[in-house]
């Protein structure tokens, strides 16, 4: 590529500020304002990258970020898009997708193996199960663009929301006109363009001096209009419902909510397809103009143009004005327009050959184009190979047509039709609030684009409630800007359709032959349009090839819709600030002060245990369990869901949503509640307390709180009962105070009479504790005498401190989730969603005691009736592991006769019973047999377990409702005798694991 040309007014570079950078280990210089690509081109670097599959040398194609030829690894950041990334001093740049550097890429041999790598070859070659792991490792080494540096600093790139009345996407002539029209109607406008500056591509694309003047005036007017907010270097990456558009700039993602959207997204220049059209030095004419006008880089010294439209001639004149000589224009068409531009080119001495197509480009020793072989067209896509001519050149510019940038329109729900006269898809029907203007709308003439923009802008503003729409026709014109078939066959192939995916014409032809003959199937099988540019330069040509193969028109094929993101967006922009919502108990600081070791429990953080100096984790947990069993322990259970229900139909509501009976629950008493879904599966559990005839207070599991409340609201709305629900989960704190000494410690602090006669087991009382209004629920949470105390969140700390202070002399310890889990396991209580799964019903969980089938209705009743007539798939049983064996873990499988017969759901070493106990789901046959179970533990070690009745500890629940205080002789109860039925202790809600 030629070096930099002399300075010119309006250039985008600042020659007073040279910048130094390194590419592939060599030092180069550019200027402030250069992009990486323009700086490399100006420096004369022969080629800038290697293609994806064949590792062919590649140079500039679109210079508009519409291809992946110019992806670079920059300062450790992968896949930096060189066309649109500004050069910075000191940049360290490497090409991606090379092995051993750009020049000596070892994988370039793949180019010679092309015949064995046809389209879809990977589906057919690598299907062997035995060999696939080896192939997979090879693919991972060979493919993938760029390298991720795992040691790089992690940062956040905050997202933000944006709001406007009218969003205009595209700041070319029609977009500028649309923005001004909308603003003049009174709307607040956001104007977005991917380029560094407003004006779109019109400023470079050989517009007349008059048009350029108009453009400058528009840009000036936009700059002075306060109600227009401009976002340059910003890509509209995706359209979402209700005019929500994702805007990606280099620093952040803006989620823009508009009331109306104008798509003035323009058109994307398309390449001609001929052999070796991917050589460095073969590029789009618009790319050459941008390079020359903005960065003063010449595409070459001896330039030829492959033409298919009038724009080719205008480009020729513009290049000449920029100091770049064009030696020939080879026009695919047999006739040109009768236009001044054509005549001017002829007057310049440019050779113009009509009906001539490029046959193949030829490379020089440096890998760049050195000559173009052309020949007369003998048919659609066919050149007369007997009459070829070789033309020396060092740059081939392609100006054969445009494809509308309509993907966002399609995402927005727009429908298009193929306009034969324009050879492009144009909008046919657009949803309310969506408007199109300019070249994406099939309007190509400069003045017509302005008019179309004004029309669309006024219409968008009117839709948003500002001003009125103007009624002007859409002037699409009759001149066709795109050649209908700029594709030339060649027996040796390497005529690329999709540069990102290294797809040639024969690849698409073969795919059609194999039956992938719709646009959707062709895309998915061949991967055309699935590379980083998402079909921007390949979709139209691919459709043309498909249409020819099937003998149908373009209208019958239709465009595929690219899904968001339309344009590649760095993951860091999508990640944004990463809000990880966390809930804290009002006792959080007190837990921390007492040495809490934290664990996540849903959105909450809870103490797993409380670390004490000199104690290991196991010792601390064991000590906590023993404190509860022999003295007293205190645990924060404030994460439980807490709901109040008021009203005359409150009891009726609970009768319907829970499986148990609550209509007959006396005021001042509690009862366990099991919640099922329509299929009878256990979804939640809790305790229901009746405070008054028409007032209940009930709890849910920690993890189920939000879901259950939402479902209850839905049911209440559905049933229309006379009751109201109040969710006080975060507004109330709760602690569970349990142990044989709990009553003795608590009584002095409260005005509630805790004696059995006044406050029996399963009762609820309201009173004060340490001066704080509290609800006391006497429940068997961990199998000891205990009280669950609920207070307003703001009062929790005072209650906790009062209890801790009062119990200090009796060895009161706070206990955490792990001790709670062991204590409750000793009682055989199951944990919803740990010991139960998505199919567990009360029959399987041995929880029919909590179900009242005689009620008229409850959710899940009908299913339970059906299930009760069948053998359950699995049942929950208690297990013990004899000493000396390894301890299995939860989810370890139970094996019977070589088959899976169940799994361990909960397991742990009981400090109280001095043995390993657990719960397991097993097949009913295995449960009934009574024989030992075999559990496959880690590394395939087989462990023997015995099924035992539950509860393991205090099977008659004497500890929970002592009329006589426990003595040293009856600390733990021990396991019941064989044959004794397990006591049906009411299970209590716990925080999920």
């Amino acid at each position, binding site marked *: 590529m030629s070096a930099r040309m002399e300075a010119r007014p309006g250039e985008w570079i600042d020659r007073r500020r040279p910048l130094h950078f390194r590419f592939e280990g060599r030092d180069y210089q550019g200027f402030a304002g250069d992009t990486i690509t323009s700086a490399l081109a100006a420096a004369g670097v022969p080629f800038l990258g290697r293609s994806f599959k064949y590792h062919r040398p590649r140079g500039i194609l679109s210079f508009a970020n519409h291809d992946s030829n110019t992806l670079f690894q920059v300062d450790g950041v992968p896949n930096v898009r060189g066309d649109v990334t500004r050069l910075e001093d000191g940049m360290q740049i490497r090409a991606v997708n090379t092995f051993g550097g750009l020049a000596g890429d070892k994988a370039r041999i793949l180019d010679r193996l092309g015949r064995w790598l046809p389209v879809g070859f990977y589906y057919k070659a690598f299907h062997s199960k035995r060999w696939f792991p080896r192939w997979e490792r090879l693919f991972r080494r060979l493919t993938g663009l760029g390298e991720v540096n795992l*040691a790089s600093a992690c*940062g956040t790139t905050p997202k*933000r929301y*944006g709001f406007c009345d009218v969003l205009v996407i595209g700041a070319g002539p029609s977009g500028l006109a649309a923005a001004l029209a909308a603003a003049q109607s009174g709307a607040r406008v956001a104007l977005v363009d991917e380029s560094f500056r407003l004006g779109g591509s019109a400023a470079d694309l050989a517009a007349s001096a008059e048009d350029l003047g108009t453009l400058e005036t528009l840009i000036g007017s936009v700059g002075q209009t306060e109600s227009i907010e401009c976002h340059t270097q910003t890509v509209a990456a995706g359209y979402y419902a209700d005019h929500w558009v994702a805007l990606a700039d280099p620093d952040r993602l803006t989620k823009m909510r508009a009331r109306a959207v104008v798509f003035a997204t323009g058109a994307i220049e398309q390449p001609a397809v001929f052999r070796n059209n991917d050589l460095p030095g073969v590029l789009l004419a618009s790319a050459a103009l941008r390079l020359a006008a903005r960065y003063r880089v010449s595409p070459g010294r001896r330039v030829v143009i492959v033409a298919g439209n009038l724009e080719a001639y205008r480009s020729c004149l513009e290049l000449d004005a920029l100091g770049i000589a064009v030696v020939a224009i080879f026009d695919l068409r047999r006739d040109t327009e009768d236009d001044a531009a054509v005549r001017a080119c002829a007057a310049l001495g440019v050779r113009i050959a009509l009906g001539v197509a490029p046959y193949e480009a030829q490379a020089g020793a440096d890998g760049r184009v050195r000559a173009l072989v052309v020949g007369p067209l003998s048919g659609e896509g066919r050149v007369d190979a007997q009459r070829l001519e070789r033309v020396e050149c060092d740059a081939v510019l392609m100006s054969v047509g445009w494809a509308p940038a309509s993907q966002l329109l399609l995402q927005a729900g727009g429908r298009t039709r193929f306009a034969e006269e324009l050879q492009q898809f144009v909008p046919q029907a657009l949803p309310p609030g969506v408007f199109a203007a300019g070249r994406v709308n099939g309007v190509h003439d400069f003045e017509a684009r302005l008019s179309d923009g004004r029309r669309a802008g006024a219409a968008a503003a009117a839709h948003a409630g500002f001003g009125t729409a103007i009624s002007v026709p859409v002037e699409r014109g009759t001149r066709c800007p795109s050649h209908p078939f700029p594709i030339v066959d060649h027996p040796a192939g390497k005529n690329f359709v999709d540069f990102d995916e290294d797809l040639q014409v024969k690849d698409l032809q073969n795919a059609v032959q194999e039956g992938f003959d719709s646009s959707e199937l062709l895309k998915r099988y061949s991967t055309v349009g699935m590379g980083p540019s998402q079909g921007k330069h390949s979709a139209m040509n691919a459709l043309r090839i498909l249409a020819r193969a099937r003998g149908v028109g373009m209208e019958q094929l239709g465009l595929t819709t690219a899904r968001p993101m339309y344009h590649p967006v760095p993951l860091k922009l999508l990640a944004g600030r990463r*809000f990880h919502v966390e*809930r804290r108990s*009002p006792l959080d600081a007190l837990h921390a002060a007492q040495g809490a070791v934290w664990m996540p429990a849903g959105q909450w953080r809870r103490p797993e245990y409380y670390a004490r100096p000199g104690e290991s984790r196991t010792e601390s947990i064991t000590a906590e369990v023993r404190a509860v069993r022999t003295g007293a322990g205190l645990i924060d259970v404030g994460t439980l869901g807490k709901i109040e229900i008021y009203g005359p139909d409150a009891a009726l509501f609970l009768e319907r949503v829970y499986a148990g009976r609550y209509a007959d629950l006396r005021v001042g008493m509690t009862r366990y509640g099991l919640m099922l879904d329509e299929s009878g599966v256990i979804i939640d559990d809790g305790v229901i307390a009746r405070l008054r005839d028409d007032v209940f207070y009930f709890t849910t599991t920690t993890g189920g709180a939000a879901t259950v409340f939402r479902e209850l609201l839905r049911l209440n709305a559905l049933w229309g009962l006379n009751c109201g629900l109040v969710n006080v989960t*975060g507004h109330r704190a709760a602690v569970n105070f349990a142990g044989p000494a709990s009553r003795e410690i608590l009584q002095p602090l409260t005005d509630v009479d805790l004696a059995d006669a006044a406050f029996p087991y399963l009762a609820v009382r309201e009173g004060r504790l340490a001066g704080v209004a509290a609800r006391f629920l006497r429940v068997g949470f961990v199998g000891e005498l205990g009280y669950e105390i609920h207070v*307003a*969140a703001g009062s929790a700390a005072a209650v906790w401190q009062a209890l801790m202070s009062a119990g200090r002399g009796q060895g009161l310890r706070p206990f955490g989730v792990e001790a709670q889990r062991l204590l409750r396991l000793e009682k055989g209580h199951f944990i919803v969603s740990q010991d139960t799964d998505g199919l567990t019903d009360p029959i399987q969980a041995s929880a029919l005691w909590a179900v009242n089938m005689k009620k008229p209705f409850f959710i899940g009743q009908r299913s339970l009736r059906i299930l009760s007539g069948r053998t359950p798939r699995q049942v929950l049983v208690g297990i013990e592991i004899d000493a000396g064996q390894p301890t299995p873990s939860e989810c370890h499988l139970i094996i019977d006769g070589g088959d899976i017969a169940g799994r361990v759901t909960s397991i742990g070493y009981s400090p109280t019973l001095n043995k390993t106990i657990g719960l397991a789901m097993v097949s009913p046959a295995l449960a009934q047999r009574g024989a030992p179970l075999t559990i496959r533990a880690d590394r395939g070690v087989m462990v023997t377990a015995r099924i035992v009745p539950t509860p393991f500890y205090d099977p008659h629940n004497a500890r929970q409702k002592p009329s006589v205080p426990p003595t040293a002789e009856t600390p733990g109860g021990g396991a019941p005798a064989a044959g004794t039925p397990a006591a049906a202790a009411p299970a209590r809600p716990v925080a999920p694991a």
Partner: protein
Amino acid sequence: MNATLHVPEGRSRAGLKGPRAADWLAQQGLPVPASANTWLTRAAGPSGEDEVLIARLGVSEFFLESAAQAALPETLSAELAATHPAGVYPVLREDVCFLLGGADVHRLMAQVCNVNVAALDPAARPVVMTLMAGVAVLVVPRAIAGQREYRIWCDPSFGPYLQDTLATVIADGDGIHRGAA
């Protein structure tokens, strides 16, 4: 970022809901916001030195806050607990409150909330129920001395997270925050 975050203390709050909640409030001599999702204030206290904010959340739920402790909201809660009026259900409110202000308050809000709060008209006294950084909040915009201020309430269990998050956003501004390697 020129935005401020203040956590006022010493406020009293109460809530109530139900089909007869509006009537009951009126019977207590309190003004009732006429429209859903609006608010008003009323002087309270012996010398009218306390201002009580009464917000109507939807059609049949109300939220009250006063600047002084042991003030009107607590009195109302006590009255509800004592009398149990039919169709009126007490709602315990232990919310955390934040006051957001400053010249860049809308840049702050744009990072955490998808409601266009800048377009709200404080004169209309709107109450917005939305999400902020993933947390359900109530938002009340006020214009004080020509500056926009937002009063935010949330469930107390989300308070520490929301406060930390807002403070971090203010500290980071709009810029990219680079962590240590």
